[in-house]
């Protein structure tokens, strides 16, 4: 507290994401534990980041941020203990199809645990979280991919895309998807 009459102490507030950004990868494993997976905190699986990024870039047709990927890889390794072996299986399917984008191989991923794993990875990148529960960790906000398809027109709340009175009533056609 910096003043006896004020509440400026940041420790009282939930600053997980910014603390993570400043704290480095080593801190992430423990901080990233969402509700329901705390029991795994002492045995964090060490999912290889390159493998996570490889499968992510095949499942998602966007440029992917490595820092976000690092946070998600660690968190998903904790939340889904069998995620790495599911990723291995998904990569086998992708290579078999000589896949460059998700449309090349997603139809061949069988429903069940492999498709669930693929969708969980996609959902994490798009939403920035792996749990929606109160108090759960946010791994990406402004870099969460769900904001990108409308980002040419629509503000990511709290991040302005223009300046003072710099917006107007014109908007791009719905069909003009931004390039990712």
């Amino acid at each position, binding site marked *: 507290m910096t003043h006896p*009459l*004020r*509440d*400026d102490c*940041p420790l009282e*507030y*939930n*600053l997980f*994401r*910014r603390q993570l950004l400043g704290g480095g990868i080593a801190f992430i494993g423990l901080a990233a534990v969402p509700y329901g997976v705390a029991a795994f905190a002492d045995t964090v699986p060490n999912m290889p980041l390159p493998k996570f990024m490889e499968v992510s870039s095949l*499942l*998602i*047709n966007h440029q992917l941020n490595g820092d976000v990927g690092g946070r998600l890889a660690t968190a998903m390794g904790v939340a889904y203990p069998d995620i790495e072996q599911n990723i291995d299986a998904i990569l086998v399917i992708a290579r078999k199809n000589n896949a460059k*984008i*998700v*449309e090349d191989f*997603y139809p061949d991923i069988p429903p069940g645990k492999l498709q669930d794993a*693929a*969708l969980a990875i*996609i959902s994490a990148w*798009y*939403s*920035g*979280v792996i*749990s*929606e*529960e*109160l108090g759960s960790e*946010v791994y990406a*906000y*402004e870099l*969460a991919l*769900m*904001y*990108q*398809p*409308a*980002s040419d*027109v*629509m*503000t*990511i*709340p*709290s*991040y*302005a*895309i*223009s*300046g*003072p*009175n*710099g*917006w*107007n*009533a*014109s*908007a791009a056609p*719905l069909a003009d*998807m931004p390039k*990712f």
Partner: protein
Amino acid sequence: MSDNYSADVVVVGTGVVGCTVAEHALDAGLSVLMLEAGPRVERWQIVENFRNLPPSLKANWDAAYPPKPWAPHLETYTDASAAEYLQLEGPDALAYRQGYVRYAGGATWHWAGICWRLTPEDMKLKSLYGVGRDWAFDYNTLEPYYTRAEYALGVSGPSDPALQWPPMRSKPYPMGQLPFGPGEQRFTDVAAKIGLHNLPAAQARNSGVSYNGRPACCGNNNCFPVCPIGAKYDAATTLPRIEAKGGVILANAVVYRVETGSKNAVQAVHFFDQDKVSHRVTGKVFVIACNGIETPKILLMSKNEKNSNGVANSSDQVGRNMMDQPKISAQITMAEPLWTGVGPVQSSSIMNTSQGDFRNVHTGALFRMENAARSRVGGLAALKKGLVGKALDAEIRRLSACTATLTIEHELIPLPYNRLTLSAKKDWLGLNKPNIYYDVSDYVRRSTATYTLPILKQLMAGLGTTDSQINNFYTHSDHIMGGCIMGTDPSTSVVDADCRAHDHDNLFLPGGGAMTTGGSGNSTLTMVALAMKASDAIVSQLKAG
């Protein structure tokens, strides 16, 4: 802490009303002490709290403002958490889940910034339409205070009288109107085709220029739960200025009793600090400005031998006539894109639907398109469909651009049975929680059935709606009014035309609680105008000795 707390003017509450009175008193050379139940924080902390919320919780206005144990407020995560503090009953109980944070700066942290005035007719419901009450004064009396309030907050608005509401002004708005984004322009065009006039809102957001040390609005589209840059007025921006002028602000000071003395004047207020230690504060004039729920709660908790119904309550009207604008919302999907999320989260409304001779039968209402960005909503909905790749991106874009929320806010007249009392349930400090009975009344229900829903459906059709879900229940607008109602007759009202308690010459209760009627528009500007009027009375009273 020393207990030598005293000032010429003791202000309880650091929201926009308390800050307005405090600054006015300081400018007049009076000493001021402000007491705030909740914590005092910096803007960046709230912004970081918001950004670090999981996406689905970002819609919860309160989630970025965790309450302190000693200053609880509504928490909306679940029905169970929402039922913790506000105790609600009656046929429309859930429609009184009013949102306000107990933080230094008050509810303007998370208000939309909209600054509609009442119309002359809104202030004469009884004489014109035979319902509700008439104000103690007319629009012309209030107009100069509205103007002062607009210049104090920094209100932007149109210069063309045809676009003003109401078009009866003594001075122009201090700033010009903010531009429309594509959604608000399209909504305006559709409304015009069915004879309705969607007006640019008067709003306490800096338009194109800085004002009062705050920057110009850059369209961050996050007015609630918090403007990240302070371009929207909130009372937190006023607190440093109050301190610079010599005012003292005590945070985490929960006032729980008003003490009266000789001639039934107020001689002190008592507060608990965060360690549950009680303190006494003396002064010459006392201002309770804790919004329409906390103010009557404090008065009712302060009953004593001479004031057996509670302080300021010889009329038995404290806590009665609780008002808001009961809201009906529609979630719609359209064939063509609307594109909300450009500019502020609210920037226009249809207002002329609030006026008419029909008010002798049913109430009027305003209509609005919510302009919050919908990419979060569209993104989460598209993900649930299990889509991937280009199909996922296309669906997110479609659901972001082609969906909207339309809102009706109905006027509610003062009804004595809509009443705040003290619950037997106690909070962390052992203080009574507020209990509120709420029934929006047949006057509102008739309007919904015969007037507002048909207009809403016309708007939906005009927008090319292909799918819709209209709430079949009322929700809250967070415009808390009426619990310390103003009037000229001490037997039927709590405060006089200057928001002075009829029962206590040195107790002032400005703000939404004093409002006699609420109209259909957002209440804050009227609350500030009343605070300006009360400020003049306080300064005159103290200067006269």
